[in-house]
């Protein structure tokens, strides 16, 4: 039986990077302050000491340059692992990611297929205001040629980071910084992967399907638990792979429950919850007994002082569940 250890998400991510760097010499890590300092969240701590400055290094302060250089490194035979210090700062690199990284394989008939993995801490809950809180998944989900993954705990973080590193596609890997330290799991210390494009049913239930990802999963777990207290049996699904996504698991669930609520932190309008609602209402139309509800961030920039009003909480999600079930 494989060894396990209790870790928080930072340790799980750090271990995944370490294991991958060890087995794939093409892997290099670059980003702002990721070298000796180990990154502002310390996810890359100790890796420069172990793998040297050539494979783990600090860059100048320019996300466009980091992404552009990483694409060139991949074209040159390396497998760059990029850290964007906060997801909010990925936008200077948006052109390199959307116009180059996402389209490269397609436009050249797969003569080249630059593999770059871009990790970024994302999401609110740390009093970070506009620019240390955003959830940009929908922008990348609307960009064919990328895989977008969002993890919800140490076990998923390690298994999906390794799977994302192994896979030959560009991956946007979203890490919910709010629970970097708070989320703890007993996880295998060995190398293991979890399947991409596979959602996880976290809690079985019959009355309604609740879908979330990243840090919202914990909030939804709380909502589902409180729903149980009020006599409702909620099925909770962790999406994990945002795109391409596991519609099958969602549809199967809603075919049983007839109801769905999706929760995310990003602004509701044109957020990824809209895609899930559009998909499920089409594929499970006959089974739907209530409108699919979205409990999400509002259509405003991410606030500072009033953050707790902006972020969906268990209370609001519970209300939506009850409304849907009692519809």
């Amino acid at each position, binding site marked *: 039986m494989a060894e396990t250890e209790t870790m928080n998400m930072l340790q799980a991510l750090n271990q995944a990077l370490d294991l991958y760097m060890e087995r794939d010499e093409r892997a290099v890590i670059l980003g702002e302050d990721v070298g000796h*300092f180990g990154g502002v969240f310390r996810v890359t701590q100790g890796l420069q000491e172990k793998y040297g400055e050539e494979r783990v290094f600090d860059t100048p*302060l320019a996300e466009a340059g980091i992404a552009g250089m990483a694409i060139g490194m991949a074209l040159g035979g390396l497998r760059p692992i990029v850290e964007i210090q906060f997801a*909010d700062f990925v936008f200077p690199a948006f052109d390199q990611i959307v116009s180059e990284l996402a389209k490269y394989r397609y436009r050249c008939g797969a003569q080249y297929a630059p593999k770059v993995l871009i990790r970024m801490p994302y999401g609110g809950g740390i009093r970070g205001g506009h620019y240390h809180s955003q959830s940009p998944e929908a922008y990348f989900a609307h960009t064919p040629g990328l895989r977008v993954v969002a993890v919800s705990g140490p076990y998923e973080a390690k298994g999906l980071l390794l799977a994302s590193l192994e896979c030959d596609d560009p991956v946007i890997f979203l890490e919910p910084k709010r629970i970097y330290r708070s989320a703890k799991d007993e996880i295998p210390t060995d190398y293991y992967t979890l399947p991409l494009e596979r959602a996880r049913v976290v809690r079985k239930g019959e009355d309604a399907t609740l879908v979330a990802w990243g840090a919202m999963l914990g909030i939804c777990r709380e909502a589902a638990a409180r729903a149980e207290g009020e006599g409702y049996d909620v099925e909770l699904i962790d999406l994990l792979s945002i795109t391409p996504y596991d519609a099958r698991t969602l549809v199967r669930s809603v075919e049983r429950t007839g109801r769905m609520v999706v929760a995310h932190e990003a602004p509701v309008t044109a957020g990824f919850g809209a895609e899930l609602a559009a998909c499920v209402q089409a594929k499970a139309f006959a089974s739907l007994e209530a409108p699919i509800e979205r409990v999400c961030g509002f259509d405003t920039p991410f606030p500072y002082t009033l953050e*707790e*009003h902006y972020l969906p909480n268990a209370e609001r999600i519970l209300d939506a569940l009850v409304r849907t079930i009692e519809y």
Partner: protein
Amino acid sequence: GENPESARCRCRLRAVPTRGVIVSAPLSILNEDGSCAPEFARLISDEDLAAVLDAFVLNRVLDRRLQMLQRQGRLGFYMTSRGEEATILGVAMTLNADDPIFLSYRELGCLLWRRVPLALIFNQLIGNSQDLCRGRQMPVHYCYREWGIPSVSSPVGTQLPHATGFGYAARVRRTGQVAVAFCGEGTASQGDFHTALNFAGVFRTPSIFVIRNNGYAISTPESVQTAAKSLAARGEGYGVPGIQLDGNDLLAVVRTMREAVARARAGGGPTLIEAMTYRVGAHSTADDPSAYRTDEEAKEWERLDPFERLKRHGKWRGAWDDAREEAARAAWETRVTETLAQCEKHPPPPVESLFEDVLATPGAQLAEQRDEYLAWHRRRPREKFEVP
């Protein structure tokens, strides 16, 4: 000034190729003993000298007090500017009140020189109902339109092309304004630095770009930011005069800024200034520099402290003494204590404000979200949502 200290202070200073009169400016003016060459002895008046020393005192009082407040959990976040005040105050004092200053985030001194009321600064840091920004941004993300301070924002470098555009507007509208933007040496690596400087050169906008080269971008030393001998040298590639100077020497900053401002107002176009200084404190209250630099290095720079150097100059001119400093400090400490007490009494902004100012009038979707949320919120007035 050819003496060991300012020589040491200029350890990172190098002559750089520049264009225009500005090339004649010396890198440093202040001598170790506080004296300076006669031609600079009246560069700033005794009144201004006293005023800027007073601002220095307040700046340090604030950095100390606010950092403490953050440690006590009474502020969410804070960033000090200790060691860089000569650059920041020197720039501010050469401008007119209506010249916009586009801050990066580490230029509290500009607000102090422009007499932005302490209460308004504290209200922003706290993010309370009296904050002009309505508690929407993190601490130190200042905006004071009445005082010519556009909004700070976190993404570094975005403010630079704004100074280019504002300068263009000032010229078209014949307002005579000069737009100034600050950034750090790390931020000079961003694409926005390139476009801002290049557009300013092409359109000869009355814009001045000041790089605070304080040696670090969080943990990353300037040596990782560029292989260039100096960042001022970039001016050449934009057709913009570039000058590197001793950023811990207030007189050197004032001298060079005056020339740049004069040229800009006269239609002579933009200037790039690289002020060599040092980030004495941590990057922010979230940072611990001991992980990436030695105390010796910091100590070395403490000895080149811009405040000490300017005080010696004030004493040399007989315009300042320790008694004045003590009096100023004592007065400011009390003012700060009183004002903080007032500001901490203000409640957070009302929940409704969360939904305001997105557009001139809320769109249909947001209006609906607001109505639903406020109705829901009123039903649970006592409920306090805690964030995991």
